[in-house]
C-alpha cells in the first residue's frame, strides 16, 4: 500500500548495539556436523532403554468406513504381546483431542485411534505393544476388523455440495472454516481496471518426507510419577494442552525431550498423537514404549500439505500495473483438523506477493475430506499464496505481451517504500527488491536465454524460462488464528534462551527450539561469541529441547522460519544482559567507572587504563565461588535468561495485522527443456538470489537455499499424491512417491544480497522454507515452454504425461485429456 507509519517503524525497530560483528557472517564449520559425520547423533530410535517394548499399528484399508467389530483375541494371546488396544480402550483413558476450529467444526471428535469410524486410509484402528518390533507386527496381522465401507469424499469442492458424504456427522457439514476479507477498495479498482485477468489453479498434495519418520520413546517413571517423552516433534510445547489432556497429567510432570531430529519440513508438528498413545501404553505397562513409524505409514498417514484450489482474478492497467486481487479458494485439509485450517489465514497477507497491489479480497473455505490430515509442510501457507499471485502475474504478462520479468519489475515494492505496509497490515521490513531482480536476471543470463530460446525453438527444441519472486515471511504472529477463530487464546510469537557463563569462563547455551538440521547450535554460538567477544569454541549449546531444563513459551519450536528472527533475538538479548552484568562486576573489581569498561577478546578492561584488565573466566570464578569479592548486594552467578517478544498485535476490527516479523526476499530463474516427443522436462539452469538480511553463517544459509530449491523442484516435477475416487492413496511408498535423487536435482547457482532487518537485533531474517518459490519458478518455466503452443498449466505439478498431452493437444489444436 505505502511506507509504514513512523510510529509503527519505531515500535518494531530493535537495538543491536551489543554486536561486535566479529563472529557473525563467518562460514564456521557447524558444531552439529562433527557428531553427525561420525554417526554419533542421537535420534529417537537410537534411544535404548532397559525393558524396552515396541508399538505397532493396525491401520484402516478404507478411507471411510464404519467399524462394525474388532477381534483382538488372537493377537492378545500371542507370546510376547503385552497390550492390544482399540479406539474403545483409548476412549476410556483420555478426552478427545482439543479442537482449535470454530463451531460447528469444533464438534468433531478426534481420538488418536479411530473410534466407531475410520475417516482416512491408514488411520490407526488398533495398536499392539510387544517385546519386539517383529512380534508387534506379527500380532497386528492377527487382528480382525469388520468394516462397513461408506462413500468417500475426496474432492474439496464437492465436499461442500449438499448431500456430500459427511466426514464428521457430529459437525453436520464438511466445512471447517470460512473467512472473507476485503482490504482496500477492491470493487473500485475492478470497476476502473483496463482489463481483468482470471484463472483457476490447483496447488497439489505432497509431503516433506523427512528421512527420519515420526518416532517416540515414552518412559513412565512410576516412582517420580514423571512421564518422559523422547520425540522428534518440531514444537512440543505448542502441544502441551493436547499431551496434558491426553495423559491427564500436569505440565510439570511431563518431560518432553528432543535430540537430533532427522528432518521435519513441517511433517513432525502433528505426531503428538503417537506421543500420547506411547505414553498411555507406558503408563499402563510401567515399561518404556518405543514407536518408529514405517515409511509406508509415514507417507500414507502422517501428514500431507493442504491442497488448495483458487480462482484468482486481477484488476490490471494496460501498462501492466496490477491494482487489486480477488481470490476464492477452497482448502482440502483432510480428515481431521490437527493443525489446519491455519494455512488459509497464516500469512494471508502475502496474497499480494512482493508487489504494490492496492487492494485484496480473500474468500477462503477449508473443508474436511477422507484424506490424510494436513499440516504445515515446508513453505507452508506463503507457498500456495505466492503460487497464485506468481502464476497470475505470468498470465497477465502474456495477455499484455510483456516479458514476465518486466511486469514483475514494474510492480515490485521499491526500496524507498521500505518498511512497506501491505493492504492487510503486513510490514515488509527491508530490501531492494528491484535491484535483486536485476542481479538475478544478470547472474542467470536471462536475456541471453530468451534469445537462445528463440533460436533453439527454430531447431525444434522446446525451451522454457521461468522467473519468479517470492518471500519467506518468517517468525509468525500466532494471532492470525484469530482471523478464523476469534476465541483462540493463542497470539504473538516468542522464543526463550538461557546463556550462562560457567565458573570456568566457558558458556553454556540452552534454546527453546527443536531444530532438525538448521544449525541452531552453530548460529546461536556465533551470536553469543559475537556479543561477548569470546571464542566460538568456548561456547557449548545444548542439543535439542528438554522441557525440564529449556526456557520455553508455548510458541517454542522450529517452524515458520522463526529461529533467525525470534530465536536468535532471544539469544542476543540473553547474551547482551550477561555482558552488562559482567561489565558491572568488572567495573567493581577493576575499580573502573562502569561506562569505561570494555569487554573484548575474553577479557574486561578499563578504557582509561588498559593495564587494569581481567579475564572473564576470573570474573566467572568470583561470580560463583569467591562471592565476597562481588559488589555488595549484587546477585552472584552469571545466568542470563531472555524471552524475545516481537511487538505483534492482534488483528484489528478489519482483520488487519502484521503476521510475521521479517520478510526475506528471493528471486529464482529457471531454464527447462522439454522433450517434444515424450514430454520429459529437464532443468538446464537454476539460479537463485536470496536476501535474508544479515547472514549469520553462509554455509548454513546456502544449505537452506539448496534444500528449499530441491523440495520445490521435487514438488513441481516428481512428488504428488494420487488418491483414487474411493480415497485409496495410490503411492504410499518410495516406489511410487518419487523423492528425487542426486540425478534428478540439478546443480544450482546461489547469489546473495544482504539487507539487514531493522526489526531484529542481529539484522538476520528468517529463511529456509523459501516460500515455495522454486515450485512457482519451475512451473513458470514449464508453462513458458508450452505457451507458444497455447498450453497452460493449471496445477503446481507438471509430469511428463501432462506436458505431452498439452503438446499433442496444442499440435492438434485441442487437448487429448
Amino acid at each position, binding site marked *: 500500500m505505502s511506507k509504514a507509519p513512523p510510529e509503527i517503524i519505531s515500535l518494531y525497530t530493535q537495538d543491536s548495539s551489543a554486536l561486535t560483528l566479529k563472529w557473525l557472517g563467518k562460514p564456521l564449520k557447524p558444531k552439529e556436523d562433527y557428531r553427525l559425520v561420525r554417526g554419533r547423533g542421537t535420534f529417537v530410535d537410537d534411544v535404548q532403554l532397559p525393558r524396552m517394548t515396541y508399538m505397532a499399528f493396525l491401520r484402516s*484399508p*478404507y478411507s471411510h468406513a464404519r467399524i462394525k467389530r474388532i477381534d483382538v483375541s488372537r493377537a492378545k494371546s500371542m507370546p510376547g504381546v503385552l497390550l492390544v488396544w482399540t479406539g474403545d480402550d483409548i476412549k476410556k483413558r483420555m478426552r478427545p483431542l482439543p479442537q482449535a476450529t470454530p463451531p460447528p467444526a469444533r464438534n468433531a471428535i478426534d481420538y488418536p485411534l479411530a473410534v466407531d469410524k475410520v475417516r482416512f486410509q491408514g488411520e490407526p484402528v488398533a495398536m499392539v505393544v510387544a517385546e519386539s518390533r517383529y512380534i508387534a507386527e506379527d500380532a497386528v496381522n492377527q487382528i480382525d476388523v469388520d468394516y462397513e465401507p461408506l462413500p468417500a469424499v475426496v474432492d474439496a469442492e464437492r465436499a461442500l455440495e449438499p448431500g456430500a458424504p459427511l466426514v464428521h456427522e457430529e459437525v453436520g457439514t464438511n466445512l471447517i472454516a470460512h473467512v472473507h476479507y476485503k482490504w482496500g477498495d477492491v470493487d473500485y479498482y475492478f470497476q476502473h481496471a483496463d482489463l481483468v485477468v482470471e484463472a483457476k489453479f490447483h496447488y497439489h498434495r505432497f509431503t516433506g518426507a523427512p528421512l527420519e519418520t515420526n518416532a517416540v520413546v515414552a518412559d513412565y517413571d512410576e516412582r517420580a510419577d514423571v512421564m518422559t517423552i523422547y520425540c522428534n516433534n518440531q514444537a512440543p510445547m505448542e502441544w502441551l494442552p493436547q499431551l496434558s489432556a491426553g495423559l491427564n497429567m500436569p505440565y510439570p510432570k511431563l518431560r518432553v525431550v528432543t535430540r537430533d531430529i532427522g528432518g521435519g519440513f513441517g511433517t513432525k508438528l502433528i505426531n503428538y498423537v503417537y506421543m500420547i498413545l506411547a505414553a498411555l501404553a507406558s503408563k499402563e505397562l510401567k515399561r518404556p514404549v518405543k514407536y518408529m513409524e514405517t515409511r509406508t505409514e509415514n507417507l500414507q498417514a502422517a501428514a500431507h500439505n493442504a491442497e488448495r484450489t483458487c480462482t484468482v482474478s486481477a484488476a490490471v492497467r494496460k501498462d501492466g500495473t496490477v491494482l487489486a486481487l480477488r481470490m476464492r479458494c477452497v482448502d482440502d485439509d483432510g480428515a481431521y483438523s490437527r493443525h489446519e485450517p491455519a494455512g488459509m489465514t497464516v500469512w494471508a497477507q502475502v496474497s499480494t506477493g512482493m508487489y504494490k497491489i492496492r487492494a485484496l479480497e480473500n474468500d477462503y473455505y477449508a473443508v474436511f475430506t477422507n484424506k490424510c490430515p494436513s499440516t504445515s509442510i515446508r513453505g507452508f501457507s506463503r507457498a500456495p499464496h505466492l503460487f497464485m499471485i506468481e502464476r497470475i502475474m505470468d498470465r497477465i504478462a502474456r495477455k499484455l505481451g510483456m516479458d514476465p520479468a518486466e511486469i514483475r519489475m514494474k510492480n515490485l515494492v521499491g526500496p524507498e517504500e521500505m518498511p512497506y505496509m501491505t493492504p492487510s497490515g503486513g510490514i515488509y521490513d527491508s530490501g531492494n527488491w528491484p535491484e535483486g531482480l536485476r542481479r538475478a536476471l544478470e547472474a542467470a543470463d536471462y536475456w541471453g536465454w530468451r534469445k537462445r530460446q528463440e533460436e533453439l525453438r527454430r531447431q525444434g527444441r522446446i525451451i522454457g524460462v521461468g522467473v519468479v519472486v517470492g518471500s519467506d515471511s518468517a517468525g509468525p504472529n500466532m494471532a492470525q488464528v484469530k482471523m478464523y477463530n476469534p476465541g483462540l487464546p493463542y497470539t504473538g510469537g516468542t522464543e526463550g534462551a538461557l546463556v550462562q557463563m560457567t565458573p570456568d569462563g566457558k558458556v553454556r547455551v540452552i534454546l527453546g527450539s527443536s531444530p532438525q538440521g538448521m544449525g541452531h547450535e552453530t548460529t546461536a554460538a556465533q551470536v553469543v561469541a559475537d556479543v561477548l567477544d569470546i571464542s566460538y569454541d568456548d561456547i557449548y549449546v545444548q542439543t535439542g529441547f528438554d522441557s525440564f531444563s529449556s526456557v520455553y513459551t508455548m510458541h517454542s519450536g522450529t517452524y515458520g522460519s522463526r529461529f533467525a528472527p525470534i530465536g536468535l533475538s532471544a539469544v542476543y538479548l540473553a547474551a547482551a544482559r550477561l555482558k552488562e552484568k559482567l561489565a558491572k562486576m568488572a567495573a567493581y573489581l577493576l575499580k573502573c567507572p562502569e561506562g569505561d569498561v570494555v569487554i573484548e577478546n575474553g577479557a574486561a578492561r578499563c578504557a582509561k587504563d588498559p593495564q587494569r584488565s581481567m579475564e572473564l573466566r576470573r570474573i566467572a570464578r568470583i561470580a560463583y565461588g569467591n562471592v565476597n569479592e562481588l559488589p555488595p548486594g549484587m546477585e552472584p552467578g552469571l545466568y542470563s535468561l531472555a524471552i524475545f517478544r516481537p511487538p505483534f498485535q492482534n488483528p484489528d476490527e478489519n482483520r488487519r495485522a502484521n503476521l510475521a516479523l521479517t520478510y526475506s526476499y528471493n528471486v529464482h530463474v529457471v531454464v527447462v527443456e522439454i522433450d517434444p516427443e515424450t514430454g520429459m522436462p529437464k532443468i538446464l539452469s537454476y539460479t537463485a538470489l536470496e536476501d535474508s538480511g544479515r547472514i549469520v553463517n553462509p554455509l548454513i544459509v546456502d544449505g537452506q537455499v539448496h534444500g528449499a530449491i530441491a523440495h520445490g523442484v521435487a514438488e513441481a516435477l516428481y512428488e504428488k499424491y494420487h488418491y483414487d475416487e*474411493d480415497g*485409496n492413496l*495410490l*503411492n504410499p511408498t518410495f516406489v*511410487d512417491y518419487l523423492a528425487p535423487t542426486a540425478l534428478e536435482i540439478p546443480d544450482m547457482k546461489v547469489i546473495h544480497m544482504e539487507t539487514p532487518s531493522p526489526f531484529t537485533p542481529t539484522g538476520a531474517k528468517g529463511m529456509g522454507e523459501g516460500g515455495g518459490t522454486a515450485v512457482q519458478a519451475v512451473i513458470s518455466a514449464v508453462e513458458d515452454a508450452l505457451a507458444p503452443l497455447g498450453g497452460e498449466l493449471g496445477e503446481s505439478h507438471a509430469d511428463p504425461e501432462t506436458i505431452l498431452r498439452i503438446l499433442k493437444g496444442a499440435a492438434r489444436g485441442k487437448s487429448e485429456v
Partner: protein
Amino acid sequence: MPQFKGSEVISAPRQAVWDFLTDPQRVGGCVPGLKSLQVVDSDHFNAEVQVGIGILRGTVKVKYEVVEKVPPERIAMRMDGSGVGSKALINATVELKEAQQGTQLDWVADVTVSGTLAGLGARYLNDIAFKTVSDIFKCTKEKLSK
C-alpha cells in the same frame, strides 16, 4: 471400480445349476486356491484362499454371502476378502437362462480393492480378481458337465 463380465454355457438343467450355486459346500469348493472352508448357513460361508499371480501370493480370508435370491434365475453374492494388509470387495450377480444346450450363465462382478495392495501400484490386481471370479464359474461348469 472395474467391472468384469463373463458367461458360460453349462450342459445341465437350470435347476441343477441353481442348486449348485446355492449350496455353499459345493460352490465354496469352486473358489480357486481354497485352503479351508467353513459353512455358516445356506447363505454364508468363510474360506481361506491362496490368491496371487506368480510370486505375489498371499492367504486371504474370504467371507461369502448371498445377498439376493430369485429362484431359479438370479442370485447376487458378495465376497469380502481381506489379507496382506488389504481388502477386496467383489459384488457379483449371476443370471441363469434356459438354453438349448442346457443353461446359460451370465455373470457381472464389481471389484474394489483397498489398502496396501491398491497402494503398491500392483496394476495386475484386476487380473487376479477377474481370474478368481471367472474360475468359480468355469469350475461350476466342469463339475456339472461331468
